[in-house]
């Protein structure tokens, strides 16, 4: 999950697995499109906008960055249906 540079202080909180988990979460529930096989880096803005969508849905502070509260909510047991849009 590319955390843009101004959030680098957050990156220390999260392991690589955490970031992958968060990316999977956004793919499953917020239609974050998967990256063509490494050909291009997904723009951090796309991820930030999906994070903003999720934070807004759950009434969290909308920052567009992966903070602790957002990550904690991602870990809660839930339904697998997307929160926005629809199944592919």
């Amino acid at each position, binding site marked *: 999950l590319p955390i843009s540079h101004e959030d680098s202080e957050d990156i220390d909180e999260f392991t690589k697995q955490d970031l992958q988990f968060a990316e999977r979460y956004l793919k499953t529930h917020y239609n974050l499109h998967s990256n063509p096989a490494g050909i291009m880096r997904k723009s951090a803005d796309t991820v930030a906008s999906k994070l903003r969508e999720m934070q807004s849905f759950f*009434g969290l502070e909308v920052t567009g960055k992966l903070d602790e509260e957002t990550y904690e*909510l991602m870990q*809660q*047991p*839930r*339904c*697998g*249906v997307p*929160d926005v849009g629809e*199944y592919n």
Partner: protein
Amino acid sequence: FFPRKLKWSKNNLTYRIVNYTPDLKRAEVDRAIKKAFKVWSDVTPLNFTRIRSGTADIMISFGIKEHGDFYPFDGPSGLLAHAFPPGPNTGGDAHFDDDELWSTDSKGYNLFLVAAHEFGHSLGLEHSRDPGALMFPVYTYTGNTGFLLPDDDVQGIQELYGAGDYDPNPKHPKTPEKCDANLTLDGITDLRGEMMIFKDRFFWRLHPQMVDAELVQIKSFWPELPSKVDAAYENPIKDHVFMFRGRKFWALNGYDIIEGYPKKIYELGFPKNLKAIDGAVHISDTGKTLFFTGNKYWSYDEDTQALEKGYPRLIEEDFPGIGDKVDAVYQKNGYMYFFNGPLQFEYSIWSKRVMRVLNTNSIFWC
């Protein structure tokens, strides 16, 4: 709603339970599924008929990881289940992750509650942002009996299918709005520096450093507690929080309910005919806890663990200006805040008088 507001074009739908989880008896699964469909048939013209072979509109199955629909489950917790919006083939189908522990109570994930949520999708509802709604995406245990479909879900499903002929439980609970001008509260307590503000089946967690209060269902934190609280207070010396409902009370240490509770309020010394406590507050300086019931109040000495002599006394006599009943009360920095309906009274313990009258919702900076 799903894009294009997908819905069934008929009211008579069929369902089939294709397989079973080993966690429950078949009859328990059958009952949970039937009860989950009834949640929706009670508030719409929809009818659900079970078939035991062939293809039903709503096919119900348990599976793990990749289970045939390219939306794999993920092992224990995380994704619990999913369902597809109305339509042919997989449309309407509901799948449950059998890597979860399914139960008929709060020991595992409650199959009835998850199935009722998933069937909302099968009928055309997407997720709700309302944390009190059944269609909220995060699992919330709301108790094992007396389920009432929240108003938000009723609004949604009736926009798709209209209302049914007869709703056996017409009082559908609404999620409280913290800035409602007429907001009233049930109870307030501190808990290790956070404030917990109780209303109906919810409480708001208010962190001193945060403006936004988090709304949580009582049952999702404490499945054993009732889904509504009359009063609560913290004794910081003992690091215990006491919660009152009717004639019972529970003691919590942090978020854990202490062994041996609930107890009866008359064990504190109250008369046996006392039905409930309206408000409670511990005054650290004196070591006393004040209990408010009706138009009277009592003082309880936490050291001697007994009600003080000379009580109950009239609220209006000792706390002039706050009215003759208390919904909730807490103390902070030498003041007591009495909540009575949509108003709160800031009462100076030192000068023994009301200093300010505020709206109840101003506790949320509204």
